[in-house]
């Protein structure tokens, strides 16, 4: 009989979560991409007036925020994997990861200001 929970003494254990996050955020971005292509086809491209009216819609802003949040979280998982693979010295790796986190959080703030800051 194998016990259902085996304590693994090594590893960070976020691998399975990263795997899931990468897929869920990917599906959100796929859906948003399809929505944008649909909107572009429906409107025959975007002129300034339609572009403004699309972003004036509250639901569209929320959906756009969801896309950007997914994109930034997805980027975190991906970029951290790249950093872990190629940057061997622990100090440099930590520094780079901190910079990436700071940049991504700043991008999230920028996203909010673009979506809700103006108009």
């Amino acid at each position, binding site marked *: 009989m194998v016990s259902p929970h085996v304590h693994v003494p090594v590893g960070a254990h976020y691998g399975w979560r990263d795997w899931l996050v990468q897929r869920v955020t990917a599906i959100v971005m*796929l859906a948003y991409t399809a929505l944008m292509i649909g909107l572009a086809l429906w409107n025959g491209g975007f002129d300034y007036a339609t572009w403004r009216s699309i972003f004036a819609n509250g639901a569209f802003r929320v959906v756009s925020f969801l896309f950007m949040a997914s994109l930034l979280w997805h*980027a975190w998982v991906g970029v951290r994997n*790249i950093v872990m693979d190629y940057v061997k010295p622990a100090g440099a790796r930590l520094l780079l990861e901190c910079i990436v986190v700071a940049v991504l959080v700043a991008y999230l703030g920028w996203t909010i200001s673009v979506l809700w800051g*103006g108009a």
Partner: protein
Amino acid sequence: MSAADRPVATPKRPVYLNLFAIRQPIPAIVSILHRISGALLFLVGIPLILTGVQSSLASAERFAAFEAAWSSPIAKLVLLALVWSYLHHLLAGLRHLILDVHIGLDLKAARMSAALTLVLALVVTLAIGMRLW
């Protein structure tokens, strides 16, 4: 007996692998391009999306200026590189999602879907490039 004392049964193995001397299979090429395109999207794509949406929503003049900014050949090349990155990354990711539900796992199908990913991203990028010029 410690691990070091044990007789080595395997023949001498290469100390390192020169990735450029090995002919990579198509799924490996798609995989490394997945990574490179992802890095490009992070470094250039995200800030450009944010600047683009911000300035295009600011005013009609800024919207026109944003459109006009894409008329130079260098800007078009950057845009195309990003379009390719987005397409390749999206298709390679979609391929992963399909593999995750155990479709196309055998070698032949996996090579086929990898080739399809590579070609489709390039063909659509080329088509968009021809429209841009």
